[in-house]
C-alpha cells in the first residue's frame, strides 16, 4: 500500500486536500417561475423542472454542450442574469396596445446569449405567450444534403420543405396545448392545390398538422401561420413572442444551399427567411420580438466584431429599426464565482484554487469556462 501511495503521491495529496477543503454550494433561488424573478436573484441559479424543459426545448433551443451537461448533472439549472431579467421586466411592463417591441441581444461568442434567450422563453411560456421560436437560423442555411425546391407560390423563391416541416413540428411541440386552449382559427380559405384546401375556421393546430403531413406546403404554411397569428394578436385574442437565435444569418451574403438545378441560393431568396424577416416587422401588437445576433452565425469572413450593426449591416438595421439593443456581457465576479461554486458542487471541477487562472484564460465567458472546466 505504501508503495502504491508513493507511486501516485499526487492522488493521496488530492484526497487529503479534499478532506480539508469544504466543497462550496452554489447560491440558488427557490423561485421556479421566471415571472417571480427580480433583481435580488441576479447571479443565482434556478432549476427548470424536466417537464417544462422537454416542452420548450426538446426540439431545440438549448446549446448542445449545455444539454449534455444538464444530462450529466440530472438537472437543468440556469443562472439568472441581468440582460434576460431586463427583457423580462420590460415585457412585464410593456403596453401591449403599441406595436411589438424589438429587442436585440448581442455579445461576444460564448457570453450566454442563447441561455438568456432560453430564460426569456421560459418566462414567455409560463406567461402563456405563443412562442414563434426559431432555434438557430444557420441550421437552415447550412449545406446538409437538404432538399431545396423552387417555390410554387412565390416566383423566384426557394423552399426547404423538410426543414420547414421540422420547424412546424417544433412549433406544435411548444404551443400545441396552448393553441388548443385558445382555440384559434383561420380567418380565410387557403387553397393549396385543386384537391387540398383549408377552409375558414379551421384551427391553427390543424393547419400546422397539414403543413407537417404535406411537407411540400410547409413553407407556405409557416407564412400563413405567421400572418394568422399576427392577426389574432392584433385582435387581442392571444399574445405572441417571436424569438430568433442567430438572426444575423438572414443577412449573410450567401448560403451553402443549391437547388436541384444547381443554382446557388442567397438567404434572401428563401421563403422561410422571408417569413422570419416578416416576423420581426412590428406591424402587429400584443407581443414582443427578440433577436439574437452572434458572430458564429455570420460567415467565416465576417466575425471580427460582435457588435450588431457590423453583423446585420445597414439593410438589417433599417429592417428592425427602432429596436432596443441589449448587451450580454461576460460574467461578473459574483456570477463567475457562483458558476465555479456550482461546478465544484457538482464535482465537475476537481481542483479548487485555480480561479484566478480560469478567469484569465476564459476572460469570464461562460461557454469558454464550461469548456475549460470539462477536463479539469
Amino acid at each position, binding site marked *: 500500500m505504501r508503495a*502504491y501511495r508513493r*507511486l*501516485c503521491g*499526487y*492522488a493521496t495529496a*488530492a*484526497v487529503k486536500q479534499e478532506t480539508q477543503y469544504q466543497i462550496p454550494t452554489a447560491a440558488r433561488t427557490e423561485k421556479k417561475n421566471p415571472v417571480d424573478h427580480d433583481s435580488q436573484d441576479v447571479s443565482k441559479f434556478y432549476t427548470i423542472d424536466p417537464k417544462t424543459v422537454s416542452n420548450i426545448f426538446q426540439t431545440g433551443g438549448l446549446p448542445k454542450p449545455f444539454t449534455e451537461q444538464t444530462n*450529466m448533472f*440530472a438537472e437543468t439549472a440556469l443562472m439568472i442574469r441581468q440582460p434576460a431579467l431586463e427583457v423580462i421586466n420590460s415585457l412585464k411592463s410593456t403596453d401591449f396596445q403599441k406595436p411589438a417591441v424589438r429587442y436585440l441581444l448581442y455579445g461576444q461568442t460564448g457570453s450566454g446569449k442563447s441561455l438568456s434567450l432560453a430564460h426569456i422563453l421560459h418566462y414567455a411560456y409560463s406567461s402563456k405567450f405563443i412562442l414563434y421560436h426559431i432555434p438557430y437560423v444557420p441550421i437552415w442555411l447550412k449545406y446538409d444534403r437538404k432538399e431545396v425546391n423552387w417555390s410554387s407560390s412565390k416566383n423566384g423563391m426557394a423552399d426547404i420543405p423538410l426543414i420547414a416541416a421540422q420547424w412546424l413540428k417544433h412549433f406544435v411541440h411548444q404551443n400545441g396545448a396552448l393553441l388548443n386552449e385558445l382555440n384559434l382559427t383561420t380567418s380565410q380559405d387557403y387553397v393549396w392545390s385543386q384537391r387540398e384546401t383549408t377552409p375558414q375556421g379551421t384551427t391553427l393546430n390543424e393547419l400546422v398538422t397539414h403543413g407537417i403531413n404535406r411537407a411540400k406546403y410547409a413553407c407556405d404554411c409557416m407564412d400563413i401561420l405567421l400572418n394568422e397569428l399576427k392577426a389574432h394578436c392584433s385582435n387581442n385574442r392571444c399574445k405572441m413572442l417571436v424569438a430568433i437565435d442567430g438572426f444575423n444569418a438572414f443577412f449573410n451574403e450567401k448560403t451553402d444551399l443549391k437547388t436541384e438545378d444547381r443554382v446557388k441560393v442567397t438567404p434572401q431568396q428563401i421563403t422561410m427567411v422571408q417569413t422570419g424577416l416578416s416576423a420581426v416587422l412590428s406591424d402587429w401588437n400584443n407581443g414582443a420580438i427578440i433577436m439574437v445576433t452572434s458572430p458564429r452565425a455570420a460567415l467565416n469572413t465576417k466575425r471580427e466584431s460582435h457588435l450588431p450593426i457590423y453583423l446585420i449591416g445597414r439593410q438589417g438595421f433599417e429592417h428592425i429599426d427602432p429596436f432596443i439593443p441589449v448587451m450580454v456581457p461576460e460574467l461578473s465576479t459574483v456570477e463567475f464565482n457562483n458558476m465555479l461554486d456550482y461546478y465544484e458542487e*457538482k*464535482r*465537475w471541477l*476537481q*481542483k479548487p*484554487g*485555480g480561479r484566478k*487562472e480560469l478567469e484569465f484564460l476564459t476572460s469570464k465567458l461562460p461557454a469558454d469556462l464550461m469548456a475549460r472546466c*470539462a*477536463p*479539469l
Partner: protein
Amino acid sequence: MALFAKYLRIGSTVKHGFQAFPQLTTAKYSVYPPHFAEPVYKKQELDKLYESGEIENYKLIPFKAAKSNETCSIFHDPMVAKFINYMLLKGQKKLAREVLEKTFEKIKKLQLEKYNRETDPEKKASMIIDPVVILKKAVANSKPLLKLTAVKRGGSFYQVPVPITDKESTFYAMRWFVQCGREKDKSISFADFMATELIKASNNDGKVVNKKLDLHKQCEANRAYAHYRWS
C-alpha cells in the same frame, strides 16, 4: 516477480538521482551551451529548494528557457504533458491535447455517473473522479518491472530479462496505452476508448495491464537466460 526483479537489479549499475550540475557533454544539437541547466518552473519545487538551502547551488548557473508546454499553473502536470507528447502525431500538439482533454472529460462523466449512483457515503468519499489521478494510477499499475532485450550468444539471439529504470517503465506503460488506443475498433472514438481503458487500468484491469502481465510472464519463462546479462 518483484523478487526476481530485485535479484536482477543486484547486478545492475543503473544510477538514480537528480543531477544537480550540468553535464559536460550535452545533447548533440542543443543550441544552449553545456553549462545551461533545465529550468525549475513549478513554484512548489522552487519553494522546496529554498527550504533545503539547495538554492545556493543554482544562483550562479544559467538556466534554459521554459518550454512552451510548461507553466506553473495548478492545472498543469508534467506527466500529462509527457503523455500528450507520446500521443502526438506529426507535431499536432493542439489536436493531441484536445483529444486527451476529451478523454479526461469522458473519464469524469463515467466516474460522476458512478458517483451519483453510489449510495454508501464511505465508498462515495473514496471514489476518485479526478482524471489526472486516474491517469497516474493507471500508468503506475501498468508499469512493467522487467523488460526483454535481445542478446547474441553463440550465434543466436536470446530474449534476456533485464531490469528497467523508472523512466523507461513509465515510457513503456504510456506507449502501451497509446498503442492500444490506435489499435482499437474504428467505431469508437479514441477519447472514449482511452477513457474506459484508463479507468480499467486504474482498477488493475484491461488490455494494458494484461500486456504488462504478458511481459512479466515471458520474463519468467526466460529466466534461465538471465545470466547472459553478465557472461
